């Protein structure tokens, strides 16, 4: 029931994910950070098999750092996304990773971008996207409410509406979410959305 969603606005991108770590009927923890900060200006929201998720995102992060140490410049978002896709594609027919990825980044020359990379290494640059059961509720909301060049407040408001919908309509819905943002000032945590008492309240309260 993991959900990851992302949206590109005017010179920034937002990635949100739920923070539950669940195994069968047990919730191991409810503050698991699934949006990894790859480097100063990149975010990778990942969902899927827990071991694969952590291993693969750390692998990408460390390779990114290695590139930067070797070459003294950071890798661009597009190159990072293509590298990630390449790793997933190479592993696909040997030892596949079950991880779905939304990679967001900011480059000075290109602006903000968001890439959809699913677990079988399908690669596409998108403006808005979501993974998981939550996607069934979020994607149509985004189609209706998304506009290009939204401000941060508008984008986070859209994400909040998606979170509200997930809480309300998904059975065994994750309640707590983390929202991270990446813009010219870097990649950082923007907000957390915490637990609410009842589904009807979930329809009105998000903080």
């Amino acid at each position: 029931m993991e959900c990851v969603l992302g949206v590109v606005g005017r010179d920034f991108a937002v990635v949100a994910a739920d923070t539950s770590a669940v195994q069968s009927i047990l919730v191991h923890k409810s503050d698991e950070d699934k949006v990894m900060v790859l480097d100063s200006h990149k975010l990778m929201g990942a969902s899927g098999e827990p071991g694969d998720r952590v291993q693969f995102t750390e692998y990408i992060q460390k390779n990114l750092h290695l590139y930067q140490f070797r070459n003294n410049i950071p890798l661009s978002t597009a190159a990072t996304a293509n590298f990630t896709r390449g790793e997933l594609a190479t592993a696909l027919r040997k030892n596949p990773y079950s991880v779905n990825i939304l990679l967001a980044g900011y480059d000075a020359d290109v602006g903000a971008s968001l890439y959809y990379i699913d677990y079988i290494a399908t690669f596409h640059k998108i403006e808005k996207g979501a993974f998981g059961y939550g996607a069934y509720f979020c994607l149509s909301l985004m189609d209706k409410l998304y506009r290009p060049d939204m401000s941060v407040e508008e984008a986070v408001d859209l994400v909040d509406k998606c979170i509200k919908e997930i809480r309300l309509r998904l059975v065994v819905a994750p309640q707590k979410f983390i929202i991270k943002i990446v813009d010219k000032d870097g990649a950082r945590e923007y907000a957390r959305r915490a637990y609410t008492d009842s589904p009807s309240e979930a329809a009105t309260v998000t903080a």
Partner: protein
Amino acid sequence: MSIFEYNGSAVVAMVGKNCFAIACDRRLGVQLQTVATDFRRVFKVHDKLYIGLSGLATDAQTLYQKVVFRHKLYQLREERDMKPQTFASLVSTLLYEKRFGPYFCQPVIAGLGDDDEPFICTTDCLGAKELAKDFVVSGTASESLYGACESMYKPNMEPEELFETISQALQASVDRDCLSGWGGYVLVVTPTEVRERVIKGRMD
């Protein structure tokens, strides 16, 4: 659901008078869910050679990267572009190398060969080439495409008429297929120019 129907796709190529047209739909889906409506399936190899890849999107992207890599090596060694017939054989070989663990895509190859003679062909996922003089189709909408192309096609069409014909055939076919659609990319290639147009149809 078959692995070929996982993402949904429709690709068609047609031969005209000293020109060819190649078109694809724009939907990227994950089974019933639509992920994107601006996904490209037709790629340029060189100015007079295009390849359209239907089937599983990840394999289409991987195969495209491999094919471009091989073509660039060829260009470095031979100092010229590959002929479409040669390229078709290259694609066929690349696919057959994976005979017992194939790439799940069906390429459509279209190009202008010697003397700008149009050439089209398609292969199945294992590399079995199918040459044609008129049109080739592939993807989830292929059966509809066969019917639409057969009825609308005429030999020796000029580029503008060819564009109309291939667009109408594509639109009619994807409208009957839930897994493909959301518009189309249509490229008409003549010896002197390439015109790419994005067509809008039923956006569902």
